């Protein structure tokens, strides 16, 4: 009988092949990529007219129940499309419970919201409009409100060849949001071959980002995010836990997502609310790091006002009891290099928005 056991050299070869495979898999997972065209769904192609219509809707306060809020209330172009607050602004008399994420580079996301409850921008756009603690607008009603404006009726006819619907409103807003991308960041220039794009200190930060600080395990690709969910056990803010208005919001969302103990829920369950999978308890989507210097405060509840505090959090291995992170052991100087990289390399030219004339 032929000996079927692999010979020593074959074992070495197999091990070597396996190692190469592992290395290449890791390299793909952790690669930084230069900017490329934003992905656009086939069913919602970009046109200049659609983008302009979406921009008008984005800034139109008719989309909120009391006419005081538009999308830009929480995604202010002058604050890198955030509102700069720990937790986002909210419908009058209520309080939101999570931080307003930037819309910069949102086109690259495969999941929207910190808990990933929407799969694309078209789906996402309607959530805040109908949310009781955000824009608080009934969607059947808002369709009629927009239909009562002749200029909008004409624009929808021109762009979509049909009447105003909530889905088309969302499609137009999504088209506008896909134009909000970071241009010309030093990292992008560096990845395209400009060896002088980063300062010496930022280069040291990049080496840490890819190496000892292990950032590229989750922050990679064009938008520096794996688009996955991780339970880092970010601490709760005691002030938020005490506020009865935030408790009402938390319980309301939990109730809507059929969380059995919503009445006694005292913390943010994160992705778990959507999947009901134990591993997703307090897991949140990895955010983009592009424009990070402009999007403080940080984390889903805005608990860290500065990048220094975020770096400290990761350096000590994340929040209590988490199993996703390990302590990094960075020196004070290494933390400084990392911060320099985050601030210097990931900040692009500011996006200048010409405010539309609303009908």
């Amino acid at each position, binding site marked *: 009988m032929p000996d079927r056991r692999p010979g020593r050299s074959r074992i070495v070869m197999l091990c070597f092949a396996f190692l190469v495979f592992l290395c290449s898999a890791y390299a793909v997972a952790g690669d930084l990529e230069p900017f490329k065209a934003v992905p656009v769904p086939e069913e919602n192609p970009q046109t200049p007219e659609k983008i302009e219509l979406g921009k008008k809707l984005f800034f139109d*306060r008719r989309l909120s129940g009391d006419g*005081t809020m538009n999308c830009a*209330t929480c995604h202010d172009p002058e604050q890198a499309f955030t509102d700069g*607050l720990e937790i986002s*602004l909210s419908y*009058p008399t209520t309080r939101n419970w999570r931080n307003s994420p930037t819309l910069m580079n949102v086109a690259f996301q495969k999941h929207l919201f910190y808990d990933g409850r929407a799969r694309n921008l078209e789906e996402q756009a309607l959530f805040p409009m109908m949310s009781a603690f955000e824009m608080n607008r009934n969607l059947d009603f808002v369709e009629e409100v927009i239909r009562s404006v002749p200029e909008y009726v004409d624009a929808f006819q021109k762009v979509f060849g049909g009447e105003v619907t909530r889905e088309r409103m969302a499609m137009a807003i999504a088209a506008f949001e896909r134009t909000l991308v970071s241009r010309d960041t030093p990292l992008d220039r560096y990845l395209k071959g400009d060896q002088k794009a980063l300062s010496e200190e930022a280069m040291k930060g990049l080496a840490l980002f890819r190496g000892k600080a292990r950032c590229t395990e989750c922050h990679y690709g064009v938008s520096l995010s794996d688009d996955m969910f991780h339970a880092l056990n970010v601490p709760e803010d005691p002030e938020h836990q005490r506020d009865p208005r935030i408790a009402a919001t938390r319980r309301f969302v939990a109730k809507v997502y059929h969380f059995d103990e919503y009445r006694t829920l005292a913390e943010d369950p994160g992705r778990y609310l959507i999947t009901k999978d134990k591993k997703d308890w307090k897991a949140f989507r990895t955010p983009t790091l592009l424009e990070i210097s402009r999007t403080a405060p940080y984390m889903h509840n805005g608990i860290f006002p500065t990048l220094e505090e975020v770096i400290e959090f990761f350096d000590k291995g994340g929040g209590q009891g988490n199993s996703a992170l390990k302590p990094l052991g960075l020196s004070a100087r290494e933390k400084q290099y990392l911060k320099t990289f985050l601030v210097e390399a990931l900040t692009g030219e500011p996006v200048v928005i010409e405010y539309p004339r609303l009908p």
Partner: protein
Amino acid sequence: MAAGPTVKKIMDTYKGKIRLVIKNYPYIYRDYSHLAAEASLAARDQGKYWEMHDLLLKRSPKLDRASLIGYAKELGLDVKRFSDSIDNEMHAQEIERDKKLATDMDLYQTPTFFINGLKLVGDRPFDSFKKVIDEELKNARP
């Protein structure tokens, strides 16, 4: 929102260096918001604006006429003068002027702050203000 304590801390920290101007912006869809603005200005006439301001936030949403008069008593105000002021909407013109200013500036959120023209929306921690004020003071002419 209850930004009062932060504002007071700012005024204490930068005593003599900054000036505070408050504009009224009662929320259109709250029953007693306009009346509460009248009450705070009626209290201002008797030198107790901040005392009334704090009480209104503490007792909100109990801001009906009877409650407001109760608060005036509690603060030791001349109740007749206070009641006449809110019943006759003595400060309506000032409040309307403030509201028009806000809508002309496309402002809809309360509180909204302007520090030398720089806009900060929402109730923010003291340090957010400190950063801006320190920078402005640094750039101010001696």
